[in-house]
């Protein structure tokens, strides 16, 4: 599966459109990690626990989007975008979406 955030796959022509595909996951922060991040708040800098958590979650969202695209018979997803929204205290939704297409 080819992914891109441009309007087409550079160097290839789009033959068919299969519509918008989406993938999302809602994650809550691990309590231990949260405590560590709370401490880290005094010192500042990168909160590695959160970086990892969000990275994993985004990968999961992408994987789900790809599955949906595969089911439609697509071989690429173009114009991929990401969105993050806070659903509740301590939980975040990671969302990926794009247009499933068939390219040469």
């Amino acid at each position, binding site marked *: 599966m*080819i992914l891109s955030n*441009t309007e087409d796959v550079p160097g290839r022509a789009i033959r068919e459109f299969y519509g918008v595909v989406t993938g999302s996951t809602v994650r809550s922060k691990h309590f231990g990690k949260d405590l560590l991040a709370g401490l880290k708040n005094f010192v*500042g800098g*990168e909160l590695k626990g959160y970086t990892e958590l969000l990275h994993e979650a985004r990968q999961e969202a992408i994987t789900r989007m790809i599955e949906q695209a595969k089911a439609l018979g697509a071989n690429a997803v173009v114009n991929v975008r990401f969105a993050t929204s806070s659903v509740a205290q301590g939980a*975040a939704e990671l969302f990926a979406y794009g247009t499933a297409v068939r390219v040469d």
Partner: protein
Amino acid sequence: MLEALVQLGVPLFLLALGYVAGSLAEQSHYKSIRVRELRFRRMATTNLRRPPVHWRIESVGLVAGSTVVSVDYFKRFLAQLRGLVGGRVRAYESLLDRARREAVLRMKEEAAKAGYDAVINVRLEASNLASPLRNDRGTAGVEILAFGTALKLAR
């Protein structure tokens, strides 16, 4: 007496800790950023949506890099002081600058590892992570995400 000492001492200690640890971490981070930026200087990275027409493209993929950062106690204190009179909050500027450059570097590292030569249509996004500890006062951190379309070019 002892109580007053503790009440005054704890914030002072946290300020000192934030200042020392925060500026040390910032210095070493900037150093590492500069070194890595030089190393990846040759990888073409652009926010143009299309590659130059003369590029012959072999393969395409999505790459991303992200980081979550938070300000230290000392900077937060500085920013609160600044909030009284308004104006430029330098303490936060450097934090966001570091985070953006780090995210872009991670994206480039991912692209290099996968064998890509360039990244086009680079986008940078920031999102606030609400703090569960402080009833939404302040933030737990900011996530900076950099992503783009990586290209492998035919030689």
